[in-house]
């Protein structure tokens, strides 16, 4: 056991490990806060859909040969998020069908583009690391860390400031609108924030596993807790713990970062399901 802690303290002396942990914790926390609202609004799948859209946008950026791919990925994802949240109230194409369309469509186009125009010799490796996350979380520059810190701070401040309004829009949109809230604006805010989180989280867990970060902490918390506040707080705590435990295991055991964090989230969900019965 002592050797475990010796190894741990050795790893922690590397700044890239500390950076990875900070970014991992912040992204998981932000994703879980928004997750409560998305799960309750029956939009769990939107994270999945948007991450595939981000994957498609990433492919376009790679083909065009852009150095800063965020310039394409972030706007495209935000636009899709706005469209999907809008269409969830639309009767012509049901919200879930729209998400599914975007999700598989973007995934197919992304892979197609990467396949046809690929300049890399290791195509399947590229695709795999975009889908399942890569070790890029361990190669973060200090600019990446600062950007992530800033974005997370903004997300958390917005969340706390609009907490009561988010509750109202989530619980009863018609009532919120009737008492004079601009529900459209809050939905827009939620869409933009979730898109930003997803683009950030792609580095961490890859585009296939992002919705796990969004939905699992919220679902676990809902199994046990009964008020909105306790569910939100608990969801945040679960997300942070799972991120820390998952990343430590992955560093120690050499397992893939994203998949390990998600596995821990699933384990927590199983435990909470049993406790909450």
């Amino acid at each position, binding site marked *: 056991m002592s050797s475990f802690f010796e190894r741990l303290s050795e790893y922690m002396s590397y700044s890239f490990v500390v950076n990875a942990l900070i970014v991992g914790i912040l992204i998981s926390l932000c994703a879980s806060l928004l997750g409560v609202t998305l799960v*309750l609004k029956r939009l769990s799948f939107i994270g999945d859909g948007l991450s595939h859209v981000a994957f498609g946008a990433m492919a376009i950026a790679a083909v065009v040969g852009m150095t800063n791919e965020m310039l394409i990925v972030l706007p495209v994802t935000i636009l899709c998020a706005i469209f999907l949240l809008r269409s969830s109230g639309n009767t012509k194409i049901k919200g879930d069908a729209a998400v599914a369309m975007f999700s598989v469509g973007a995934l197919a186009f992304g892979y197609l583009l990467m396949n046809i125009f690929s300049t890399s010799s290791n195509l399947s490796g590229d695709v795999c690391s975009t889908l399942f996350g890569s070790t890029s979380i361990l190669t973060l520059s200090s600019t990446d860390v600062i950007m992530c810190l800033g974005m997370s701070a903004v997300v958390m401040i917005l969340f706390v400031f609009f907490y*009561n309004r988010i509750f109202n829009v989530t*619980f009863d949109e*018609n009532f919120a609108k009737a008492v004079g*809230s601009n529900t459209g604006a809050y939905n827009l805010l939620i869409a933009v924030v979730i898109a930003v989180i997803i683009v950030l989280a792609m580095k961490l867990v890859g585009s296939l596993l992002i919705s796990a970060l969004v939905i699992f902490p919220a679902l676990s918390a809902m199994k046990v807790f009964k*008020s*909105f*506040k306790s569910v939100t707080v608990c969801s945040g705590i679960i997300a942070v713990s799972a991120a820390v435990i998952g990343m430590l295991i992955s560093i120690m055991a050499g397992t893939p970062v994203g998949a390990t964090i998600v596995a821990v989230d699933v384990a927590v969900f199983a435990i909470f399901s049993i406790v909450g019965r």
Partner: protein
Amino acid sequence: MKQIICENVSLGYEGTTVATGINFEVNEGEYLCIVGENGSGKTTLLKAILGLQNPVDGKIEFVNGLTRKDIGYLPQQTIVQRDFPASVREIVQSGCQGRLGFRPFYSKSDKALAAKNIEKMGIADLTSRSYRELSGGQQQRVLLARALCATGKLLILDEPVSGLDPKVTAELYKIIKELNEEGITIVMISHDIEAAVEYASHILHVGHNNFFGTKEEYLLSSEGKSFISGITKGEGENE
């Protein structure tokens, strides 16, 4: 004192007109029931009054100082709410949202108002319970307390008793009647024509021929007679 004036309003959605020529007015302290067949545009009318949807034609006016913020709304329950993890306190407090302005959190007086309305609805013992664990009647009381936090002037209720058993239905009607007697104006959509003619002061019948008048006038009108007898006949056939 007039509170709402509705002039020659036509309603519809996605290009289909569902109701035309609706005229009525609501005075302070009245109890208006909106009745009519399914699909006649009752809920669309309610949404137009609440400003959730614009009428195709005509106008709905609030007068004598009434604003949209003075309206308390009891919507029909949604699927989202059925398993929603929120305490009774959280939901009732959310009725104070119109008063928040630029403040992020509820003030002491908001919280006191919520507590008062919880007490008034007789659900004080449920304050910390989760909404999803409550019975249908208790949930309606919670939503009614929330609506009261939004207003002390006018309540708009959309089929408040649908899905409730007869005993709970009667209790809820009694509560609504008591609120009305305290001076709160009630506008209610109802399927329950018997309760409508028992409790309401005025009836608005939306359909091929619109009718608006006092309950007594409605009972004597051709619309009222055919609608009531049609319903009792329909119930007879079901038995």
